[in-house]
């Protein structure tokens, strides 16, 4: 689990006694093909590494952040599978501090652990260094991309290439044909002669060969690791309190800064009287940046107590009159004006139907509320910057720090630490945590851990945008939809508004309304809103047609067999249509996001006027699955995250600033309110989909559709705590 540091890989003693490190990178031509296919920046993350030590241990070096999604285990599984490694001998190492890859000489040292550099490995090594130096933000973790891109195109290929190299080394050593050698359980054997050698014994010779960028990959029917549940590498440290998160950074001579930023986004420090806390124990400095102040002390509590007494005021930058109400009023006005851009036009939306339906939906801003409040430790000195942070995109942090400080990225070192949750907040979209930390650190000589209180974390977020969505639909005499119109605020991710249902006439458009509220990607991004909107309105159509919501959807999914199978599966799991106890009802929702199709059925009741979710059945088709238990854990996690938003989640604004402060007024699901969850995985063989996000979008509509079945009340806005079911 140890993260690599400059020292331990340069001197080669910090890990398991040196060893051979094989670097695999891909030719730009191959990358271009993949990029063309996937068109995302994540596709660039294609350099993966494996270290083999003489004691026959394999370390897989993972260039992604662990934030609870299990990627530090699933990616090594993919490499070990192709390599034919004995899983019990496989370990994970977090990819090293980023400048190492960007520094040619150091990365060569890293590659070979300080040993001689075979000339033949030079080109890929140089290419990797060059490429990573050019692209500062290719280390991102997000968009459920790690397994799909790094794993499928990087880890598997690297593992297969390493296996070929080991077999070649064995064949040469024994003077036999490569084809007669077999790799299995971290050994190469030659059955005819009975020769057998461990990967560790072959590694040094293997490293002299050029890795094949297009090795033959295993047929999935031969998998022995992928598709089996493996215990995660990161869990033992986490149950012992030994995992090191960003907030646990401990640097010699470090102080602690507690931050307070302008409560109205965009505001500035108007007045500051440092004398108001003069002479208090432990206080080292009071630092001001344009939109925030920080009290620096030797202890968080001393700093935060002094900050509470500090005389400081902020301006509102002209946003002091903004409230949630004024924002939604502007949203509705934009829809009424109907000057949105066309997203899809097909057929003739003015077609007559037997019945017409209209509905407006809305959702509020949401905070991520990860358990670890935002923080970043930085030391800025002599034109160089060192950062310790848990972030989804350490390379982007590096670039951002360089930009903010006006120095070269080569002079910024990022030490990636564990993330105590993120859900999008610690992504590269809004790197306020980097910016504020380095600007504060730049004003003092010592390293400083800049910390957000929970209140600051909640009121200075990067929020899932509030939005509204207006639907119109027409049904024919039999109740089938003939047209689907959707006009919504705002354009976050246009793919999220597509529907899987066969409706001939579709007219979908978007209007933009800018606000001063900071934007953040929030678990499942735009699918979190549109999943609720679309699946709720589909439910309205089914009921308007007087048809069963599952049967109604089924009839429109003939062209989407994966969706159909997921829907049928979840209906079977929940025994849809069975008689239910008095006061209980089921609701269904179906949503594809990040390549995974997820269907959910929720069983709900009303208790003391409040929604109670008893059970959620979840069928998911991610194409295939690497670590089934880890995938199930992600489905459970996404459902509970989505249910919290559905039941309670709401950030409101008044006087330009966020009103919620802490968990007491930003309630979340707890043990007592969490439902029983059953997950089934469908392995359709489709292109690998994501795990971390796709179960969040169906959670809310499954519940609200169940509430309609139970009460006849159609929920068109969230959260449910604002609705009266008494």
């Amino acid at each position, binding site marked *: 689990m140890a993260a690599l540091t400059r020292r331990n890989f340069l001197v080669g003693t910090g890990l398991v006694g040196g060893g051979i490190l094989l670097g695999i990178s891909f030719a730009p031509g191959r990358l271009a093909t993949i990029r063309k296919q996937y068109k995302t920046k994540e596709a660039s993350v294609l350099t993966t590494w494996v270290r083999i030590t003489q004691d026959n241990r394999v370390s897989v070096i993972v260039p992604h952040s662990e934030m609870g999604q299990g990627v530090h285990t699933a990616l090594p599984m993919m490499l070990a599978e192709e390599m034919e490694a004995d899983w019990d001998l496989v370990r994970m190492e977090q990819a090293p501090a980023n400048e190492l890859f960007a520094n040619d000489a150091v990365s060569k040292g890293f590659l070979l652990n300080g040993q001689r550099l075979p000339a033949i490995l030079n080109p890929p090594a140089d290419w990797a260094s060059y490429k990573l130096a050019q692209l500062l933000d290719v280390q991102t973790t997000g968009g459920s991309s790690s397994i799909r891109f790094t794993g499928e195109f990087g880890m598997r290929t690297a593992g297969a290439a390493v296996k070929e190299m080991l077999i070649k080394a064995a064949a040469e050593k024994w003077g036999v044909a490569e084809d007669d050698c077999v790799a299995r359980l971290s050994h190469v054997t030659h059955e005819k002669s009975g020769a057998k050698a461990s990967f560790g014994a072959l590694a040094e010779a293997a490293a002299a060969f050029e890795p094949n960028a297009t090795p033959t990959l295993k047929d999935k029917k031969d998998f022995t690791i992928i598709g089996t549940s493996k215990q995660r590498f990161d869990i033992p440290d986490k149950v012992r309190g030994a995992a090191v998160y960003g907030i646990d950074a401990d640097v010699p001579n470090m102080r602690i800064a507690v931050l307070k930023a302008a409560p109205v986004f965009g505001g500035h420090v108007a007045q500051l009287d440092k004398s108001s806390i003069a002479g208090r124990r432990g206080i080292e400095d009071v630092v001001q940046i344009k939109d925030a102040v920080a009290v620096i002390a030797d202890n968080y509590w001393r700093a935060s107590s002094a900050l509470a007494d500090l005389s400081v005021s902020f301006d509102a930058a002209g946003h002091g009159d903004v409230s949630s109400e004024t924002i939604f009023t502007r949203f509705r006005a934009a829809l009424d004006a109907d000057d949105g851009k066309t997203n899809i036009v097909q057929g003739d939306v003015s077609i007559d139907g037997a019945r017409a339906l209209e509905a407006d939906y809305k959702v509020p801003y949401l905070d991520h509320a990860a358990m670890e*409040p935002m923080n970043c430790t930085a030391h800025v000195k002599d034109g160089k910057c060192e950062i310790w942070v848990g972030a989804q995109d350490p390379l982007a942090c590096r670039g951002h720090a360089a930009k903010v400080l006006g120095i070269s990225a080569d002079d910024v070192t990022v030490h990636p630490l564990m*993330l105590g949750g993120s859900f999008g907040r610690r992504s590269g979209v809004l790197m306020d945590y980097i910016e504020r930390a380095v600007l504060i650190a730049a004003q003092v000589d010592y390293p400083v851990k800049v910390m957000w209180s929970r209140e600051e974390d909640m009121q200075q977020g990067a929020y899932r945008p509030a939005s509204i969505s207006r639907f119109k639909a027409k049904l024919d005499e039999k109740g089938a939809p003939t047209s689907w119109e959707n006009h919504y605020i705002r354009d976050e991710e246009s793919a999220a508004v597509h529907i899987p249902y066969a409706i001939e006439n579709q007219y979908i458009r978007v209007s933009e309304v800018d606000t001063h509220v900071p934007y953040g990607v929030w678990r499942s991004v735009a699918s979190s809103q549109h999943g609720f909107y679309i699946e709720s309105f589909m439910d309205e159509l089914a009921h308007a047609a007087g048809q069963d919501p599952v049967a109604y959807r089924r009839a429109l999914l003939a062209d989407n067999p994966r969706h159909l199978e997921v829907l049928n599966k979840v209906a079977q799991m929940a025994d849809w249509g069975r008689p239910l106890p008095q006061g209980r009802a089921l609701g269904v929702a179906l949503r594809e996001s990040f390549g995974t199709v997820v269907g959910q059925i929720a069983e709900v009741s009303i208790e003391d006027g409040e929604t109670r979710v008893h059970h959620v059945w979840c069928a998911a088709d991610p194409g295939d699955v690497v670590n089934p238990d880890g995938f199930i854990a992600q489905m459970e996690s996404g459902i509970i995250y989505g249910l919290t938003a559905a039941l309670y989640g709401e950030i409101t604004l008044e006087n330009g600033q966020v009103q919620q402060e802490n968990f007491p007024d930003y309630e979340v699901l707890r043990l007592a309110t969490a439902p029983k969850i059953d997950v089934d995985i469908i392995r359709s063989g489709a292109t690998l989909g994501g795990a971390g996000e796709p179960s969040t979008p169906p959670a809310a509509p499954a519940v609200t559709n169940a509430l309609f079945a139970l009460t006849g009340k159609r929920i068109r806005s969230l959260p449910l705590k604002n609705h009266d079911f008494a």
Partner: protein
Amino acid sequence: MTIKLTINGVPHQLDVEPDMPLLWALRDELKLTGTKFGCGVAACGACTVHVDGQPVRSCSYPIDAAADSSVTTIEGLGGAEGTHAVQRAWIENQVPQCGYCQSGMIMAVTALLDENPTPSDADIDAAITNICRCGTYPRIRKAIHELAATNNKSRKG
């Protein structure tokens, strides 16, 4: 003022303000960072430790209330064996995701099981009010029931 207390079996003397929350004495004075800061208002339970065997939310627990007491944190929970039965159950059930809340969660659960070795669902709901944003609740419940079943068996045996 000097506060004397025992932490994970080791006597300590701390020169800190009496109203400093125990959490910040642990984290910033003693560098015991296994105990986590989540909310600062005793709402989330990430900072749960044991004071004389009782679970307390250390972010809102002044250190002078722990004077002359015995404090156990996640680092000391396993004792001489190294890993407590609850920690083993957490590994077995693959409970943690990001893991940040789990120190406090495990401390709350060990305190519950010390008090009530075979808790019902209602007992669990009432006692374990810690927040986990990764939503590991179903696995936590399952792990507690497995531990209770073991306790029940050993009690009968």
